[in-house]
């Protein structure tokens, strides 16, 4: 167990590590130079071979100075800025996982881009102040929700992931509603590095001046603050202002990078961690190195896209996700850089309700919700209509009831399955944020179904299930394989999942842009919803639900024992490994079944187990059914709200769950922390 702080304090005693930093700097610069030379050589050659007075010569110079060179520089600048941003966020939160993309900064910036495209008066896509404002809001939201600066990696990641999911859901909704206005947004969100001229680059460099000037002043206080707050105070570091300025600076770096290159995920996460993995920990060396290597990574990805002649299709952002994810996974699993981060998630709000009351109450709410769903809509259908519909003398009412009921039942069943999946995952991975959407299982399943849909639009239901299962199971297998050495320790598992999920999401986005001018047709599916779902959909989910009930009873007791810790569970005769595999398999199955029907709906699986725990249900035999009930209620409500709030325009249920779930989750994080600190516990 060598926690990060232990690492950094160790480094104070080894100052000869400076040599390593110098070596890394030289290697990094050489890499950059080599890549740049490779990229630019043909054009430089063309310029040297041609005469400036000829048209050919002019065009050769134009290509070099106005297209190739700006693009190389843009990649370097954006990569470096992201590397710096990541380093600062990580130093600020003392958390190796903080990065602009995990804190939702990129998601926020993307919403900014939307605003820019929808309201041309805002001045185009690459508007740094706008992106900065949106990104900063997102970062603040994640930070406040996570509980400020000194939270565990897990807390921060929960909050950041929640923010990111929320933003991406809103983005998707806007994309489906305004599909013709913003064909470009989808393009842009994959990251675009095409630079006609140096104009964009110069603008961005101007915006980078301020954070670059501030940066050197931040290094020492940040370094000191890693010793702990008390130590920093003793040394006279004004913690609060310092942190605030750091956050603004880091966000500015990220916003500038996004404005020149689009949202490139992962660079800010990978670059600093690569350097740390190579053994450099002191900020003074880490900061320039992260900039160099960040630029190098982005340039390499962009060069690969161009070398493979993919620039018309695969954008650099997608390539970064494809290259970056394995790199990130390697980092996570090569060093135990993440060990020592403790899972914690004992929600402290205790509402002691008896299980039976809760179950009955939940069932009553479900029934009431179903009845309300049937009755409520543009035309209110009272019991009299129901009677008429059943008797067959009101065909329209019958049709409406059928439409409304099929939808809400599908939503409820899928919600229950997702909640069951989330609860199982959180128990097995012993991790309060192991929902299927955080572990990338829903994204994997979603990508697989999307592939199947693109391949054959009229795909049958069993084929959808099969595709979904293959995708979800693949992600799970990769997670298991990579984490077998850590015995599925919470943080590496969560990170592996987040990385894989992000990659699948990037690939899904790319697939959509690649496959149709009319992107809404796939986007609608990608955000997940219950629109147009029929009774057949609901009945196809039912067997999965029935399957879970006996499984819950089997798994509940051993899972309870597992919660006591591995050794204790093993001592009590629980076959730990087998139990984990069975539970993970079941969780994947449930999530994939739900995804095959309603698409990759987020938040239900993540949130409901927390809710169940908050109500005071810890033993699995109780927590699972309650969580599933809550999941059914949540997705059912999302369905009713989604179809009626803006009727006749549909808000996908997946967006609704994010809109309901994210604020709730963020609020819960904040609230439970307040209660803890009120009791005087750290």
């Amino acid at each position: 167990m060598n926690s990060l702080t232990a690492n950094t304090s160790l480094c104070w005693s080894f100052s000869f590590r400076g040599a390593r930093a110098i070596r890394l700097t030289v290697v990094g610069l050489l890499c950059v130079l080599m890549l740049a030379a490779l990229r630019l050589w043909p054009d430089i050659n063309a310029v040297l071979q041609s005469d400036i007075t000829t048209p050919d010569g002019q065009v050769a110079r134009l290509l070099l100075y106005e297209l190739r060179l700006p693009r190389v520089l843009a990649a370097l600048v954006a990569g470096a800025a992201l590397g710096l941003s990541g380093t600062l966020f990580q130093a600020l939160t003392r958390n190796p996982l903080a990065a602009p993309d995990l804190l939702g900064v990129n998601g926020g910036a993307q919403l900014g881009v939307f605003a820019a495209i929808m309201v041309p008066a805002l001045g185009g896509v690459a508007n740094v102040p706008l992106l900065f404002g949106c990104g900063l809001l997102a970062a603040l939201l994640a930070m406040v929700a996570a509980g400020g600066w000194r939270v565990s990696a897990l807390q921060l990641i929960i909050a950041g992931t929640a923010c990111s999911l929320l933003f991406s859901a809103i983005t998707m909704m806007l994309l489906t509603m305004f599909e013709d206005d913003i064909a470009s947004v989808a393009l842009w969100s994959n990251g675009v590095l095409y630079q006609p001229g140096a104009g964009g680059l110069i603008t961005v460099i101007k915006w980078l001046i301020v954070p670059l000037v501030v940066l050197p002043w931040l290094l020492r206080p940040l370094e000191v603050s890693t010793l702990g707050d008390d130590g920093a105070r003793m040394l006279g570091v004004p913690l609060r202002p310092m942190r605030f300025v750091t956050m603004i600076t880091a966000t500015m770096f990220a916003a500038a990078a996004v404005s020149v290159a689009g949202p490139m995920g992962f660079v800010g996460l990978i670059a600093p961690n690569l350097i740390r993995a190579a053994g450099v920990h002191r900020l003074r060396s880490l900061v320039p190195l992260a900039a160099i290597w960040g630029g190098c990574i982005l340039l390499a990805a962009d060069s690969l896209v161009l070398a493979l002649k993919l620039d018309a299709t695969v954008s650099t952002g997608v390539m970064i996700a494809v290259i970056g994810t394995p790199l990130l996974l390697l980092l996570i699993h090569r060093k135990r850089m993440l060990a020592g981060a403790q899972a914690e998630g004992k929600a402290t709000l205790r509402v002691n309700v008896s299980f039976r009351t809760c179950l009955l109450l939940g069932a009553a709410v479900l029934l009431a919700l179903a009845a309300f769903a049937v009755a409520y809509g543009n035309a209110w259908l009272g019991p009299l209509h129901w009677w008429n519909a059943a008797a067959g003398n009101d065909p329209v009412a019958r049709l409406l009831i059928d439409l409304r009921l099929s939808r809400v039942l599908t939503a409820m069943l899928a919600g229950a399955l997702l909640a069951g999946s989330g609860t199982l995952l959180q128990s097995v991975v012993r991790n309060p944020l192991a929902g299927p959407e955080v572990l990338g299982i829903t994204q994997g399943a979603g990508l697989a179904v999307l592939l199947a849909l693109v391949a054959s639009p009229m795909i049958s239901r069993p084929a959808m299930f099969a595709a979904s299962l293959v995708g979800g199971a693949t992600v799970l297998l990769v997670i298991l394989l990579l984490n077998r050495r850590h015995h599925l320790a919470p943080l590496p598992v969560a990170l592996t999942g987040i990385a894989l999920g992000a990659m699948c999401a990037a690939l899904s986005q790319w697939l959509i842009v690649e496959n149709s001018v009319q992107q809404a047709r796939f986007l609608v599916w990608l955000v997940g919803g219950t629109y147009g779902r029929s009774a057949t959909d609901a009945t196809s989910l039912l067997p999965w639900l029935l399957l879970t009930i006996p499984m819950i009873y089997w798994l509940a007791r051993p899972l309870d024992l597992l919660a006591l810790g591995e050794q204790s569970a093993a001592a009590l005769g629980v076959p730990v490994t087998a139990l984990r595999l069975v539970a993970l398999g079941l969780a994947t199955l449930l999530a994939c079944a739900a995804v095959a029907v309603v698409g990759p709906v987020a938040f239900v699986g993540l949130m409901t187990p927390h809710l169940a725990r908050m109500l005071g249900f810890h033993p699995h035999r109780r927590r699972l059914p309650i969580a599933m009930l809550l999941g059914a209620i949540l997705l059912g409500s999302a369905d009713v709200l989604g179809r009626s709030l803006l009727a006749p325009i549909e808000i996908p249920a997946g967006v609704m769950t994010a809109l309901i779930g994210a604020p709730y989750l963020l609020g819960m994080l904040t609230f439970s922390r307040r209660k803890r600190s009120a009791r005087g516990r750290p």
Partner: protein
Amino acid sequence: MRSAVLPDHPKRIVVLEFLFAESLAALDLTPVGMVDPDRYREWIGYDNPRFSQVVDIGTRQQPSLEAIARLKPDLIVGVTFRHAALFDAFERIAPTVLFNFNATDHHVNQLDHALKLFDTFAIITGRAAAGKKVEQNVQTALASDRARLVAAGLAGKRLAVLQELGLQDMYWAYASNSMAGGIALKLGLSLWPNWPTKEGTTFVSSEDLLKQSDMHVLMISATGPEVGLAQKLNSPIWRYVPARRAGHVALVARNIWGFGGPMSAIKLSHQLTEAMLAAGRGDAPSIR
């Protein structure tokens, strides 16, 4: 995809794509429900007054099944690429026809395909004779545009039709199998890119245009007239694009619907002709 039994003379038609709303208007019929009427007004705008009382049933991708059911339609018309998965749901409400919006064969351009589709649509709505007349009008309009171009000495010229996307120097170009491609063919012009793509569009950047000499570029604007052509072409790359140096670039006002029916085709043809004439004069004003 179509229901087995369709009504002979449907009276209450619900249309789930602009193309059908426009086609109904061309056939002098009014739907009872349509998708996104505001957007139709803005983008297609053919016979707007006719649709002032038509019920809004939501978006094209997710029309409200409830709203459709409440209208008690006798025919629902949509497109397979959006609505195939919903066919069963529609069919429970009313007889349904879903058209293949894009030709399965890439060598059939969207103009020919849309006219064929319109033909079928006219037969289904019981207005075959009116449909024939509309088609004649389209051919006449295109022929007169062609004559204008010939008179201006622009016959056989190469052109590219770009759609602005709001990204700097990156555009959709309409390919040979798009509606614009079909119209260019009828107008006696030679369109670049001259190869078919999956949905009739392909991404191009200003760098691609750099390599195309002797070409007219017609750019369909994504902004209002407040942003002029000069502003759109101010990157260092554009300055060297041969089309721009020759003054052969023209702006086409936004909201041109390249995915429409016969009336959109006439409008597009007129706009392209006007733009070609403007670009041909080499002074490239913005066209209102």
